[in-house]
């Protein structure tokens, strides 16, 4: 009794102080929770639920039509074993790898850097023109861009055939993979170019000039000054480009995965399986595999980035 009558003043002194430390708005947990609840609910409905739903679907034989559409049955890991033993899946994964390396890592990154490097000393309308053109490819909606490419590569009336004088050449049938790789480079290079442009402009000119003063060649300046200075940007660029290219679906609008599955990269393969193929359960399982691959890629980059920071 006596102690309880003594403690309140002390308690009153410490209580507000503690509240101030972790409760900046002074709302208290319950009311604060109420404020963020709508956001949490929306995230739950549109992000969490589909994800969980996909996991569940991946373990059923759910189909778009037929008996299983009405009452899907739980099949455990059957979908996964089916996907992982299907040569079509592995073929698709292989195509995706080629696609990511050629159009994303090599194509967009190198060409984007090359463009940023070449326009860094240009000023005025020439620079504006080049940047405008590259950026245009980026801002044009994918559906429009794919249509442009269809017109470009058309067998009979295509611009490329008219320019090269190769009338009747069916680019999309004879070289479908090359076509979607070029298409994706064309669409996505602007991002790398802009990222590298800003990275290059942040390299202190005096460092480059120091290298010049001791007679370093252009290549040596690149190796010893530029690249070390923009390492972080290179890493970020590669991560984003890899993930985007890995997940992109727009090549479907150019080749529809064909001919004969020759351009059936993973995203297209999932679509072909789930929608026209009607095997929603299997599609969901492959989606989850794709998600896991994404996670592995992202974690790999985080590792590299952390190792870099530690050194």
């Amino acid at each position, binding site marked *: 009794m006596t102690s309880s009558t003594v403690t309140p003043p002390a308690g009153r002194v410490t209580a507000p102080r503690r509240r101030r430390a972790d409760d900046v708005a002074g709302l208290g947990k319950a009311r604060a929770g109420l404020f963020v609840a709508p956001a949490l609910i929306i995230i739950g409905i549109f992000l969490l639920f589909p994800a969980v739903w996909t996991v569940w679907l991946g373990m059923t034989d759910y189909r778009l039509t037929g008996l299983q559409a009405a009452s899907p049955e739980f099949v455990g890991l059957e979908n996964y074993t089916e996907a992982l033993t299907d040569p079509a899946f592995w073929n698709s994964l292989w195509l995706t790898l080629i696609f990511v390396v050629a159009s994303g890592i090599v194509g967009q990154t190198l060409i984007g850097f090359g463009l940023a490097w070449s326009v860094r000393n240009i000023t005025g309308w020439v620079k504006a023109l080049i940047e405008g053109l590259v950026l245009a490819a980026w801002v044009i909606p994918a559906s429009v861009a794919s249509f442009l490419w269809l017109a470009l590569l058309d067998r009979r009336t295509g611009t490329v055939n008219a320019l090269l004088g190769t009338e009747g050449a069916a680019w999309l049938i004879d070289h479908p993979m090359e076509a979607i790789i070029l298409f994706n480079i064309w669409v996505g290079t602007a991002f790398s170019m802009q990222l590298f442009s800003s990275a290059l402009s942040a390299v*202190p000119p*005096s*460092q480059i*000039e*120091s*290298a*010049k*003063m*001791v*007679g*370093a060649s252009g290549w*040596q300046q690149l190796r*010893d*000054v530029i690249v*070390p*200075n923009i*390492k972080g940007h290179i890493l970020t660029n590669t991560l984003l480009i890899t993930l985007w290219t890995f997940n992109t679906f727009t090549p479907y609008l150019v080749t529809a995965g064909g001919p004969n599955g020759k351009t059936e990269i993973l995203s297209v393969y999932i679509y072909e399986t789930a929608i026209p193929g009607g095997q929603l359960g299997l599609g969901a399982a492959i989606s989850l595999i794709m998600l896991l691959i994404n996670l592995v890629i992202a974690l790999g980059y985080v590792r590299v980035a952390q190792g870099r920071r530690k050194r």
Partner: protein
Amino acid sequence: MAGITATQLVKEYPGGVRGVDEVDVEIRDGEFFALLGPSGCGKTTLLRSIAGLEAITSGSLVIGDRDVTNAEPGVRGVAMVFQDYALFPHMDVGDNIAYPLRIKRVKRDERRGTAAKVADGLSLQGLIERRPGQLSGGQQQRVALARAVATRPDVLLLDEPLSNLDARLRLEARTFLKELQRDLGVTTVFVTHDQAEALALADRIAVMRAGKLQQIGTPREVFQRPNNTFVAGFIGSNPMNLLPAQVRESRLAVGDATVSLPPGTEQLVREGQDVVWGIRPEYVRWVTAEEAGAIPAEVSVVENLGASVLIVVNAGDRKLQVAVPEDQEPAPGDRGWIVPQLSKTLLFDAETTERIG
């Protein structure tokens, strides 16, 4: 080792600004040479033209006995220390210093050895493995110097090498720089806008203004015999008093007072000519009793400079600065006389601003 000769050197930037305008300068072998001038006068531009980092618009540049007007920076035998030091943040101190040797394809062990030796010479022992980000400003500056001298260049260029250091460290680094230059005997050109630094360090100084050379001379010459009123006003910790005056009956009318013409100028002026009379505050005495050649004056402002006091006096309608020893410090409002030291007075043409005599 090599001298530098610039002839009618012009550097015009796109847009027509002439950073360097028809500069003729000859820098001798082994000389410690300062480029001095106010901000924007073209010091950096001239230095960068010598380095080869700016393409020369016209004129010629010879280093040693080679014409390098259009040569690449790397083949001029010139090393440069930038104002921000420009150290490579991703290399340790040793690799930074050894970088020029790496470009010259010296083997790693050998160049690390040289770097260590050079670092020792610049009191950087024990810092070889550190990154530039882990060094103080003064240490970074010495690393930049070490990198510049590691290849034994013929010419060393320094762009405001001391401006990033605090006042005390700057004095230390100043001495250090002077010793280093003497030891190496390397022809050194350094840019500064601090006239005290130029006077203290340089064998000779070139004063620039708006891209043009105003005067080249030893510190003593530019201090005692400035070519024109601009140099007179720029050099010296207290600017020279420059007062409009008129020649009258072989004397000089300065406001209400008259003073004698500076020695040696009597034959060079004509009656009624408008001139500028110059006298440094240090060469004027403040006296409380009238004497020959004294001008009556009243103290308006007193500034304490430590060992001396700078006072501003009104002599008639003219204002003058006078440096007074601390124990003779007057109070504002005091009346007395000022006595210019005649042999130290200078005369400038009011129209051309050039020195007379």
